[in-house]
């Protein structure tokens, strides 16, 4: 199968290309970038007036399968991914059971392949059952397809366990990913600690709850030499700690969500859980520091922390309603809104080049030989309607907002899986069936 993306402005930071070019994909792989390429029997995708980028990779999503398929399935999450312009996602291990054994990981990989939409890279647990005490089998998990390791929302409280985990897994290229929240400092918080929590009589979690774990984990990274990724930074001080660690040569990267870049902790007047998320939406100085961190390069990646829930679950009392909301289908518009005038080359680097590099997965470039994964987007206004999400999670604080940038089409392994609002699975015979055991040791 051949596909020609014609007439678009190709932005590929990995090759330092920003020019009008055509992209030719054959047999699932990019074979040529050039001017006025011949169709040669290929399906032609008209990208006139649009931007053509290497496929976007969301390195932080929750697909809820196995165990919570009422919230999302691998199939619906994959559909949401391609509808949001993502050709690949990395899914967190907080499923039920957790992604802590090769059997479960293999099943996730199998179901993602059956869905035949986005590529799905599982993130394995650091500890068994994400309980923070016993180490997970990292090499077996890697063989089954895991590209990184994390206990996600269950911050490992025991520094000895975390240090030993990092030492044991030191030979694996997949990073450790930390969700940084100190459970004791956080307490039963439902929002950020500050003037709004004081006034509303709601328990708040201080930014300090994040900062102390970021500091600890970066010190463990330095101590062990393990490559380390800080998930969804939300405070100015966390960013300073990342800068400090980098200056010391610690191999560390970090990501930011669209909601932390755009919203602050003023969304709880109605005592609804629409804005309840971990880490919580912070105050204006933190938000501005995050935007600055994107501009100055401290932040490596955009990652949505796509966390779908049922509408009835989110409608519960603030104390019991679950944390998080859907992010895949608003990401492109929301990031453009949150960081206006970010150079396109940086925008693409944060959504594609850098996540591919951090996770060590194929893609992140349109260079010949790369996977035929392409995201086409344009400056076209649209309004978010969460009810129309492909995700089963219909909640987002961005609902009803007007965006200026939107996804036009998504191509995975040469197949147009999303175009004109329609999601179409890849053909049954797939050149990119995951064969994780072949990953080089």
């Amino acid at each position: 199968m051949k596909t020609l993306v014609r007439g678009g402005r190709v932005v590929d930071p990995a090759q330092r290309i920003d020019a009008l070019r055509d992209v030719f994909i054959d047999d699932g792989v990019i074979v040529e970038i050039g001017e006025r390429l011949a169709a040669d029997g290929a399906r032609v995708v008209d990208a006139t007036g649009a931007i053509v980028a290497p496929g976007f990779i969301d390195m932080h999503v929750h697909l809820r399968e196995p165990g919570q398929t009422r919230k999302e399935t691998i199939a619906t999450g994959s559909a949401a991914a391609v509808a949001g312009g993502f050709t690949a996602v990395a899914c967190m291990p907080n499923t039920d059971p957790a992604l802590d054994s090769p059997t479960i990981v293999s099943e996730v990989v199998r179901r993602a392949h059956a869905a035949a939409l986005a590529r799905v890279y599982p993130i394995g647990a650091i500890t068994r059952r994400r309980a923070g005490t016993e180490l997970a089998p990292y090499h077996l998990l890697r063989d089954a397809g895991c590209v990184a390791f994390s206990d996600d929302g269950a911050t490992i409280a025991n520094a000895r366990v975390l240090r030993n985990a990092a030492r044991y897994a030191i030979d694996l290229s997949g990073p450790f990913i930390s969700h940084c929240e100190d459970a004791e400092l956080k307490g039963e918080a439902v929002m950020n600690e500050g003037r709004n929590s004081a006034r509303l009589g709601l328990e708040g979690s201080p930014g300090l709850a994040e900062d102390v774990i970021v500091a600890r984990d970066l010190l463990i990274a330095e101590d062990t030499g393990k490559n380390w990724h800080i998930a969804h930074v939300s405070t100015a001080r966390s960013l300073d700690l990342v800068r400090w660690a980098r200056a010391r040569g610690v191999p560390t990267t970090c990501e930011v969500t669209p909601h932390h870049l755009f919203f602050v902790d003023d969304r709880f007047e109605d005592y609804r859980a629409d804005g309840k998320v971990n880490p919580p939406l912070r105050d204006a100085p933190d938000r501005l520091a995050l935007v600055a961190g994107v501009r100055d390069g401290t932040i490596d990646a955009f990652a949505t922390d796509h966390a779908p829930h049922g509408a009835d679950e989110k409608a519960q009392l603030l104390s019991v309603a679950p944390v998080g909301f859907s992010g895949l289908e608003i990401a492109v518009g929301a990031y453009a809104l949150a960081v206006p005038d970010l150079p396109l080359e940086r925008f693409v680097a944060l959504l594609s080049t850098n996540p591919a590099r951090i996770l060590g997965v194929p893609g992140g470039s349109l260079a010949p030989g790369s996977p035929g994964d392409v995201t086409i987007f344009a400056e076209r206004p649209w309004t978010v309607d969460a009810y129309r999400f492909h995700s089963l999670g219909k909640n987002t604080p961005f609902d009803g907002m007007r965006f200026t940038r939107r996804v036009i089409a998504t191509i995975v392994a040469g197949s147009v899986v999303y175009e004109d609002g329609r999601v179409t699975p890849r053909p049954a015979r797939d050149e990119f069936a995951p064969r994780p055991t072949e990953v080089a040791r």
Partner: protein
Amino acid sequence: MRSRSPTRTVAPRSLIDIDDLSRDEIFGLLDRAVSFKQTAPPRDLLAGVPVLNLFFEASTRTATSFTLAEQRVGADVISFAPGTSSLGKGETISDTAITLRGIGVRVIVVRHPEAGFPRRLAEAFDGHVVNAGDGPRAHPTQALLDLMTLRNEFCSLERLHVAIVGDILHSRVARSNIVGMTRLGIDVTLVGPPTLLPDAFAVDGVHIERNFEAVLPRVDAVMMLRIQRERITASLLPPLDDYTRNYQLDRRRLDMLPDGAVILHPGPYNRGVELTDDVLDDPRSRYVAQVGNGVFVRMAVLDLLVNGARAA
């Protein structure tokens, strides 16, 4: 705190916090309460109106006071204490609201351990909701009875200076009083240790003071809040001796309080913690007047919400 004052010509449908009321509505309510105190109102003000007292949290004073107020205006009173685990947690709030309205309830007086529950209930309920206390958030009828008590003592509330002392962080009484008092032009000083009174409470018209004795000589009223012993295990307080050394109202500190000042306490009090027996015996103490006024304030609130303009 926030001084968003409602502007409207019709009476509010529900009372969730003091900021649901304009300055004029607060004064109207207090006038009405005073008139009820002077002359018993007709017993058919709320004749046949089904009022549900829905207390998810134990209460002695407030529940009794509301029940008596409801009976005095002729309402059909139903009281129900569901416990926190069943209703309101299992089923959604809107399902609860629709069910209760379907049964025929027109007014819900609700107390709940979680901040925001009455607001969420009021949004879903086709009737009136009166907040009888939601977690640390609000207790508007308590603030109204405190204002009624102060108004009975001082000819004007404008520029009056009131200190609220103790566990501000967990106090719905403090939060409602801060809003109500600042709305009426009262200067509020909050007193307490940083763990129970974070700096985030300092807003327009509200001052924070850590030195109780520096405040005492210059207040017109001091409101003492209860200290819950579980705050010690939550690492918010050292042994109580240390707290009482700084913040207990005792014989010695009573002498620093001006003669014309009054002492308020929302109850229940812990003798020997935030105050000593001397305080309760002191002629400046207004605890009994406060609980007495509570019944009339609640009658006035029910009248305003159900009968609207007639009460204004």
